Every structure is written in C-alpha cells, then in structure tokens.
C-alpha cells in the first residue's frame, strides 16, 4: 500500500537576495510536508521568512535552491519552474491575502466567477458554481454587491470563495485575518479548516493571530529564515497566562 503524496512538499528551500556583501538569506533549508485535508499555521515574527516561503510555494517568487512538489508533482527545482507556472497557479493553487484584493469593478459573484472563467469554465456553469460557493461561505445574500459595499469580513469570505473556486490542491493564505476583528478572524480560520476537510485541499496559513490556533491541525514556526519546533506555551499568550 502506497502513502498518498502530500499536498505540499518542500525540500531544503533557500532564498537568497543580493550577493557578496549585500547578500541576505531570507529562507534557509526549509523542508516541510502538508498533507491533503490538513490545515497548517505558519507563525513567526516579521522578517522571519514566512511570506518568502509562502510566495515560493505559491510559485510567485522562486527559491534560490531547493525543490517544491505539489500533489506529488515536482514544480520547482531551484529557481527553475518545471511546469507552466501561470497555468499551474490557475488550476491548483488558491490564494488569500491580508487584503481581500477583490477586483473593485466586479461584484462578489463576478469576482468568483472570473476565477472559474479564467480556468476555461463555461460562463453559465461558472456562475452557478460561484453562487454555490458564496452561499456555502455565507455571503450568498451579498453576491450582487461590489467589494466596497461589503464589510472586511464579507470581502475576505468572497476572497476565500475565489481561492476555492477551482477546487485547488493547495490554498495559501497570508495573514488573512489581520484586518478582521477576533470573531470574524476566527470565522475565517474555521472556514479554512472546513474547506480543507471538505475538499481535501492542503491549507497553509501565515498568521500572527494566536487566538484561533486551535483550529489548525499543525503549527509551524519560522525564525531567521528557518523552520523551528513550535513551542505552544511560548506562542499562545492565553495558555501562558493560565
């Protein structure tokens, strides 16, 4: 019996900016594996290399060394892409950011529908799927609103719907709750968990929000560009206080 390939697997990822005296190592020897249906949090102080790791896995910012596999398929070897990056992103990766980054001239529905149409989904089918997703994420009643008519939480839900539209193999989220209050923040985190478990996607969430860490299956921590064992007492102020 073979073990199913992890949703995300990185080996010795290293990212170096500049050279010589100006050389900065933003990420060093990062190896991790995130299984399908698993929700993983990535903690760490500013400048620890979290976003560098996330953008490397998201095929936005290639590493200097190391390799990345997604769903068992090698996609990066060093700074060379082994797949058509844009096409791969379109099909297999969903992104959510601190800001929802919705297209301002499209309604909530159209923002989600666009992600599907970009992936060659026929417009009618794309529209139906987008409506289902928005209903699923609890913003079905706001689907005809433009982004500026939505609250921060609602915008973030639409962004999540857009990220999930093409049933990606992995979802990468960079501080998705930073602009939300604690209740909304927790709702979004729980949403990721639900999505991961329901759709079998691997979800990696960069966060500073320690209040919802219980939602995650695994917690990773970065410091000075390297992964280290997460000390739950150190990281969770609530638990430390008790």
């Amino acid at each position, binding site marked *: 019996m073979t073990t199913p390939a992890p949703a995300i697997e990185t080996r010795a990822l290293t990212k170096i900016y500049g050279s010589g005296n100006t050389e900065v190592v933003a990420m060093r020897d990062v190896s991790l594996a995130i299984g399908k249906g698993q929700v993983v949090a990535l903690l760490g102080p500013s400048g620890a290399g979290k976003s560098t790791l996330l953008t490397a896995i998201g095929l936005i*910012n290639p590493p200097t060394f190391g390799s990345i596999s997604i769903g068992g398929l090698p996609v990066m070897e060093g700074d060379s892409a082994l797949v058509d990056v844009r096409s791969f992103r379109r099909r297999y990766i969903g992104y959510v950011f601190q800001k929802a*980054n919705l297209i*301002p001239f499209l309604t909530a529905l159209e923002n989600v529908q666009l*992600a599907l149409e970009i992936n060659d989904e026929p417009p009618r089918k794309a529209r139906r799927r987008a409506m289902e997703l928005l209903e699923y994420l609890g913003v079905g009643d706001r689907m005809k609103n433009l982004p500026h008519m939505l609250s921060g939480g609602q915008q973030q839900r639409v962004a999540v719907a857009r990220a999930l539209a093409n049933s990606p193999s992995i979802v990468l989220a*960079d501080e998705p709750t930073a602009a939300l209050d604690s209740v909304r923040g927790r709702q979004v985190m729980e949403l990721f968990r639900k999505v991961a478990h329901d759709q079998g996607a691997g979800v990696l969430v960069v966060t500073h929000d320690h209040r919802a860490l219980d939602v995650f299956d695994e917690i990773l921590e970065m410091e000075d560009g390297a992964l280290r064992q997460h000390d739950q007492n150190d990281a969770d102020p609530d638990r430390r206080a008790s």
Partner: protein
Amino acid sequence: MNLALRDIRHNLARFSLTTAGVGMLLMIVMGMGGIYRGLIEDAVLLVNKIDADIWVVQQGTRGPFAEISRIQRNLEDRLLTVPGVQSARAFVWHTVQRDHGGKPLRMVVNGLSWPQDKGEWLPLVAGRPLGAAHYEMVADKLLGLQLGDSLTLGKDVYSVVGLTQGMIGQGGDGLAFFTVSDALAIQFDTSPESVRLERSARKMRAVRDDIGKVQPALLDKADLPAHRLPAVSRPMISAVLVKAAPGADPAGVAELISGWQDVSVHSSDEQRELLLKGTVDRARRQIGLFTALLVIISAIIMALILYTLTLDKTRDIAMLKLMGARNSVILALILQQAVLLGGLGYVLAYFLGQWIFPYFPRRVIITDEDLFRLGIIVIAISVLSSALGVWKAMKIQPNEVLS
C-alpha cells in the same frame, strides 16, 4: 466575462469625461480635415461650376485665379470664329471690399458675359439669374445680403435679384455675379476729379508730342471721355471662357487657339491643377501638416490616458496574473477599452462636428471618404496608443498584489 465593460461601468463618470476629451480632440482633427477639404473645394468651385472647356487668358499668365490677367474684350469675337467653338464668354474676376451697413463687405466680383451668360448655371437658392444688362447682381448667402437689397458699388446701385449658397472664392469670400460691363464699371470706377486730371494730362501729352501737331483733330478730342476716343483702349477683361461645340475635341480647339501669340490657353483641368498647385497649395500643405500633427498629438494623449488607466489597475492586473489569467485576458481588457475610447470619441466628434462646423466662417466639408479614413486612423491610434499600457501591464508581476 468582459472586464473592459465592467471596468467602464464602474468608472462611468471618469470614462465619459475622458471620452468627451478624446472626442473633442478628434473633432478638431476631423475639422482640420474638413477645412483642408473645404479649401480645395472652394478653390476649384467656380472652375467646376462655370461649364467651360477652355480658359483663354493673357499670354504667359496662369489665369485670373493665379495672377492678374488682362485681355482685350474683342478676343471674345475672335474666338467665336475658331472652328469647333460653340460659345465664348468674357469673364471678369476681382475682389472688392466696401462698407455695407456699417460693416466691411468683402466679395469676389464675377462678370458674366451678358446676354449669353445670365448665370443660369448658378446654384440659386432664391430669386432668379440676371435679367438685365445693368444694375442687377446675384450674391452668395455668405455675403449676408437679402433678395431685394440694394448695394452701392462705384457710382451705381445694384439690386440683389438672386441668392446662391456655397459659392465661395479661394480666399473664403463670397462670390457676387454681375454682367461683365457692370463688373468692369465696379473695377475701374474712378472719381470725377481723377477723370478730369487724366483728360488734362492726356491733352498735355498730345500738345507735347508730335502727334498733336501732325493730327490737330486728335488734339481737339484729347480731353473728351475715353469712350469717345477710338484710340484709347477700353477696359480689359480677365479671361474668355470657351465651350467646345458638341462633337468637337476641346484639346484640338485649345491647340488651335494656343497658336495665337497674344494669349495663353488652359483647359479646365489645367486651371483646376493650377489652382491647387498654385494659390492654395501652401495653405493646403500647412493644414495637411497641421492635421498630421494633430493626429500624432491625439495618439500621444490617448497613449497617456490608456497608460494612466492601466496604472490605476496595477493591483487588479497583478491579481489577475496571480490567479493565472492568460495574457490575452489582460490584453483584451486594455485593447477593448482603447478601441471603445477611440470609437466613442470618434462618434462624439462626428456629432459635435455636425453641430459646430456650420458656424465656422469657412466651409468645413466632411466627406464619407474622409470619415472612413479617419475611422481607420482612430482604430489604428487606439491600438497603437494602447501599446504603452500593454507594455506596462506585461511588466506587472503577480507579487505586486502583496505590496
């Protein structure tokens, strides 16, 4: 999903204002083209309308439109004797400026060879052609005269009996048609004092010269009016217009007349060519160059507008790239907006022009051919000017979403 239309819908006010600006700019381009066309049409208008095959003018000159041409009026009778000539009409052409109703009135005086030519060929919009040998005129509406108006020119008063529309000289002045005699009277109008002085000077010359002693009778008549002196020439006309007889070859007739030593002969086509290459050529080229410059400026302005519109969408384009959108999606967004901007601007320019151009002092002629050509140019400008925006869009990296 059409992103271009949705973006426009979202920023409708800004897009409308931008389109209005582009439309006005294109209206100026259209107008300059129309002025260019109007200049050419006005220059050749009379040659086209007057229905002559051959223009007989002063020897060595290019005709009355290009320079002063003076020929004897009896040339009309000589030309009628040439085989193949159906008619020969005297033609007088000069510009006058007089005060009328407290305002300067500038007109091109045309003499028609009464009674053969009463001006039946004129495009009358009111009244009738000339009906008498003297003191009647047909005026173009541009001159601001009405039917029945009286106008004092020289020592005589002329009544407006007919009105034309669009009969304009190459300088943009309205045309007025008189009989040749009246046109000459207007041209050679001299004050009584000047006439007296000329007669006196004439007598002095006769006394001084031998001819006065040899022919005393001439001395006696020296101070009489010019028309009573056969030796003193009558006023000269500008040209004689010849119409070839049916079946006669105008080129053959022209060749025959060109053998005469005292005249030059031009066909109507040559006269047209002389007008375009001569008197209006510089103005024509100047307007043509100005129009070309305006087209280039329009392209630059549109390029900057489209570049700015693209800059405003940097984050959205980065997001589209991050989502894996193909370049064609982003190209379509920019190109469709460019073509819409140009296309709607063009339509606006057309309707604005239709409304404004009639108020221009000179004719602005927009032909279907010019409209079609400008349409193609606008599409080309739209596509070319979007290149800057497309270049910027292609340079946008997906990670700019994170900034």
